[in-house]
Each structure stands twice: as C-alpha cells, then as structure tokens.
C-alpha cells in the first residue's frame, strides 16, 4: 500500500487511533507521539495481515514483558470488535505533523549533602508521640505519627561513580588544559583536574506486611514513600506470603494516595510471612538483574516466620554478596531484654550489617539517618541490648 492515496491515509489514521484508544482503555500508555509512529509503521507494513498490524502496534506500545498481556487483550478486542460499536465512541481522527520532541530530563548530580534534616519535634506532645510504640497508639494518634514521618526530609546518600567531572584530585583534565593553553597562545599550565563524580546509592526496601507487623508496616511504607520522593533511585517491595513490587505505586507526591494505591496492590496484607520464599523470589527475579547490586537494602521485619530458616540464611547470603550493606529494622528490638531468638531472625542476623529497632517514629527517623549516612562498609556491632549469658 502506497499510503499516498487519501483514503488509505484516512484508513491508517483510523486504525491507529482506534487501536490506541482501545489500548488506553486496557491501561496502556498511548501518547500522541507513539500513535504517530504507529501510523507510520502501519503505512509501511500495510493493513492486510493481522499479524503485521499486531507486531507493528506491539513494537510501539509495549515497553516491557509486563505490558504484553494488556496489549494482547486490547488488540484482540479492537480487531474483533463488532462493526456497529465503532462509530459511536471513536475519537476524532486528527492528522498532525509530527513536531513533538521527547525531551528527557537530565538528572543533575549534586555534590556534598547538607546536614540531615529531619522534621524536628518542637512540642513535648510531638516528642511523646515520637517515642511511643506505634502498636500502642490509638488510630488517631497513629495518623498523627504517620503524618510526622511524611514530613521528614532526607539526606542524600552519595556514592562514587565512574563518571568524571571537574574536581580536585591527581587526575588531569586534558581537555580543559588544552583549551586553556590555546587561550594562552600555547602556554601549558596543567592546572585543571578531574575527580570521580558522586551519585546516590540505590535503596531497596523489603517490608514485611504480615499480621504481626500491622501498625509498623504502615509506618515503614510511609517512610518508603518519603524516600521515594527523594532523588535516590529506590525500589520498594512488600513481603508477605509472596513478594509484591510497590515502587511505581509510591511515586505519587500525595502520601495518602500513594499508600492507598500501594495497599491495594498487596494481595496478602496482614497474612503470614514466608521470608525465605520472598527473599528467594527477590533474588531470582530482581536481585540477579542487578537491582540490589551496590544498593543499601533495608529489611523491615520482626523475623517471625513460618518458613525454613536455612532457606532464609542462604538467600540472605546471596543478597549480602551483591548488596552494599543490609539494614534490618525490627520493631521488637526495642523491647528491653529482646534477643533475636526467633529462628528466622537468628538465621538472617549474620548477614546483617546494622540491626535497628523500628517501633516508633523516632526509631524510624534513626533509620532514615542511617540510610543517608556513611557510604563505607564497616563491620558493626549488632545494636541490641543483650546481657552476657
């Protein structure tokens, strides 16, 4: 098909917008720029073969294997739609000249973080709220506590990358030296230098959402939302009987909206925990892909688990070999006399770099500070009060 015949062009445009409309109803993103590309593809490959149209659309609207099922449903309902249904809800077909540009926002690196800023407790009531165990608060107080968490801002956790930029070190910036020499009529002063740029380390949060963790997991998810609004790359997962990825859902700026969205995605909220299975799934599906590589991993769980402690140990081992460091936040750890005797917890402990309590707002702020803290990995003393023997 030549595509220059006006009827042909109208048909291509109709198919392109029609399919895009249907796909949008199934939840796929169909920006105008993509529809234009699709129209061009249709003109190139022709409308006769269903397979060709299918693959043309798929190459434009599918950006990952998770979109394929939605695309298939949308395509099927479009292609096999009864003829009468179309005219009524077809969108208007507009033929535009493609002058859109997909501008990519460049991520700006910033050097040297400021002091950790945490929403201060200025009133004694807030102080008490900050220290209180979340499980012991009334619903109203819990909401206040959660609001306090959302108000926190975090310090950037920097790490070195391979990217070089002007800075101070022994390495010469030849490009700028040559340019400077040219300005000085050929006189060379080797004064410009390069240093490795600093970039934020990725954060991975694995939050136990089982029944025993009820009040605490909500707070931890709030904290994750705060982290997600920051500039570090972050991935958040809920751990119950299975693993649920929450990252995309926490991206909204509105905390309440984001958390409702996230909670809706977790099929087994307040169910049981199978930590070993969840860790195994994380390692296999995401860890291998490199999400956890060099990252700060934060596991929030009481360690009370129904699964096999050996599995937990081996999966924690796998994780510790790729992660930069592992923080374990345990709401039970604040109780006086707590010792990590639960088999799941004991199995995981040797692989944990920093063990912290997480029962109150203050404790979570401490976690925030710890995440934003040092970049070096030093062996740390496990921080729980265990009297000898």
């Amino acid at each position, binding site marked *: 098909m030549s595509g220059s015949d006006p009827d042909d062009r109208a048909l291509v445009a109709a198919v392109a917008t029609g399919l895009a409309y249907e796909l949008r109803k199934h939840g796929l993103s169909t920006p105008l720029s993509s529809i234009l590309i699709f129209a061009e593809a249709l003109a*190139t490959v022709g409308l006769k073969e269903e397979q060709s149209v299918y*693959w043309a659309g798929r190459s434009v609207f599918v950006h990952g294997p998770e979109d394929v099922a939605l695309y298939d449903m949308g395509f099927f309902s479009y292609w096999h739609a009864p003829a009468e249904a179309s005219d009524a809800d077809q969108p208007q077909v507009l033929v535009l000249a493609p002058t859109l540009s*997909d501008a990519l926002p460049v*991520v700006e690196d910033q050097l040297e973080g400021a002091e950790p800023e945490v929403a201060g407790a200025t009133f004694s009531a807030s102080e008490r709220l900050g220290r209180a165990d979340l499980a012991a608060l009334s619903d109203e107080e819990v909401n206040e506590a959660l609001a306090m968490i959302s108000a926190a801002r975090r310090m950037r956790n920097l790490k070195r990358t391979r990217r*070089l930029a002007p800075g101070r070190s022994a390495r010469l910036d030849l490009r700028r030296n*040559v340019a400077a020499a*040219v300005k000085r009529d*050929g006189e060379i002063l080797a004064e410009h230098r390069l240093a490795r740029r600093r970039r934020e380390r990725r954060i991975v949060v694995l939050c136990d959402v089982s029944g025993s963790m009820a009040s605490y997991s909500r707070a931890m998810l709030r904290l994750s939302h705060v982290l997600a609004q920051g500039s570090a790359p972050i991935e958040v997962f809920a751990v119950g009987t299975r693993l649920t990825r929450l990252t995309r859902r926490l991206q909204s700026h509105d905390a309440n909206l984001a958390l409702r969205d996230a909670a809706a995605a977790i099929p087994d909220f307040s169910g049981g925990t199978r930590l070993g299975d969840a860790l195994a799934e994380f390692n*296999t599906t995401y860890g291998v892909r490199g999400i956890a590589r060099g990252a700060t991993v934060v596991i929030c769980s009481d360690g009370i688990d129904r699964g096999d402690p050996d599995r937990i140990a081996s999966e924690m081992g796998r994780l510790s070999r790729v992660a930069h460091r592992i923080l374990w936040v345990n709401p039970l750890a604040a109780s006086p006399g707590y010792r990590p005797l639960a088999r799941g917890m004991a199995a995981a402990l040797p692989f944990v770099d920093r063990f912290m309590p997480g029962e109150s707002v203050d404790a979570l702020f401490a976690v925030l500070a710890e995440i934003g803290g040092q970049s070096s990995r030093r062996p740390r003393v496990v921080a729980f009060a265990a009297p000898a023997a």
Partner: protein
Amino acid sequence: MPVLDSPAAVREALLAEHYLADDGLATVAFLAISMSRPLFLEGEPGAGKTELARALAAVTGGELIRLQCYEGIDVAQALYEWDYSRQLLHLRASEARGAARGAEIEDEIYTERFLVRRPLLRALSATGDAARPVLLIDEIDRADDEFEALLLELLSEYAVSIPELGTVRATIRPIVVLTSNRTRDVHDALKRRSLYHWIEHPEFDREVAIVTIRLPGIDVGLVRQVTAAVHAMRELALYKPPGVAETIDWTEALSRLGTKVLDSEVVEATLGVVLKYREDADLVVREGLDELTRRATARA
C-alpha cells in the same frame, strides 16, 4: 544486498546469515530498517540480541559498529575525543618556534587531524556508496540517565554537533540496534523513540533449528537432547538461566566428546559449559541429574 521490502524478505535474508528470526522479530526489524528508527531489544541474556545486529550487518554488507556501554560511559568514549597528547605536542612545538598566535593556534588544534572518532561518530560518518552500517549499542542498561539523554538527541536527528568543528549529519542513516538486559529500567523516552521488542528464550523446536543451523553437520538427536535438558534447567530458579549461546556451546562440547546419548556422568562432567555459577550447578545436581537426563533422552 537483498531487497528488504517486507518482513518475509528480512526473515529470509537473516536466515541466509544463519539467524533464525520469528515473525515478530522479523516484522519489527523490517519496520526499524524501513522507518530508520532504532530497534530496542530487551530480554534474557543469551537470547540472541547481539547476534541479530551481527546478522543484519552481514545482510546489508555494511560495517558493524559496536558500542559496549558501561557505568559512566560518556561523550569522550562514545562519540569523540581530541588527541590531547598530540595537541599538546603541537602546542609546545609552536611555542618553541615562537610561531602562530591566538586564533591561528585554535584553528590548527581543532581539526580532523587531531580528532578521534568513537563509535557513535563513526556510525554517522558513512558516505558515498557505502552500505548501511549497523550501530550496535550494547547493554544500554549499564549506562546512566545522562548518557541516555545524549543518545536520545543523536537518535532523533542522526546528527551531532561538535563544539569546535560544527554539526556532523549522517548522509547514510545507520541501522541502530539497542540491547538491554533489564538490570535497570531504561527511560521511557528512549523506548518510545525506538521500536521495542522483547526477546525470550525460544521454544523447543525453534531452538533445535537454531542450534542445527549454527553447527553444520551436527547430530540432530544430540541437539534435541541437549535442548530438552536446557529447557528443563530453565524451569528451575537459577541465578543465571542458560541462554541459546549455552545450548550451542554445550552441544558442540558433547559432540566433540563423541556423545550420542546423554547420561548423568557426562552431564555432570560438562555442567560448567552450560551453567556459570556454582550455586546453579549445585541446584541442578540437587534436583536430580538422573531425572534431567531421562527427560532429555526422551526427546531425542
């Protein structure tokens, strides 16, 4: 060069270069070539992404220009760089001679003579009757956001501007293939600029066909057994499931050992050819080599 005027034509041409593409890949490749849009291939490692670029270059007869991405890759490694040492020598020599001054020096320093063309620039520089080159940007997920921004500009206009030299615009547009192993979510804008295709490990029959094409004269019964064994392994929760490349290597290795029928001993002995992680090998052995071998030989 064969005329690539339909998905079927692309498929035939690739087959002639020993690359077996399914209908989907052939269609998307056809569109990428005709529309001069980049082809974005994402999928399991070892599923044939890089191989496709090689096959396309063989088909067009053009040069295969490869850019291997890594964390921190930037303009100097990917696009162009000045040969600073020679420039500095030139400057010293001029200064010693008391020769050129001011603007003249600048004109001498920033010329073709001192320009080092890296892969991206080379891909834009084909001229005259040259065949269309294939630019393979491998493992873009290992690079960072800033590099993606650079690519986005380049891939929309097929032109770059070099501050000291001016704009370089491609007269012959390269066929661009981007690959990603999905260790990171590549920015959507880059995917939207391209035509996307997800490559999976092939189904049994197709994988047998691929291996058979790649190893001329090989015993097909052996190929079927090895493929069945690899498929069984892919069902396990391995750290790094074996790809088609591993199936090919394993078949070749077993063939050289004179194996006609798989048994547990030879499988265990050659496990290192197909599984590259100790934990994976241990897992497979724990799951039972006898069962694995039985399933494999059943499909001979």
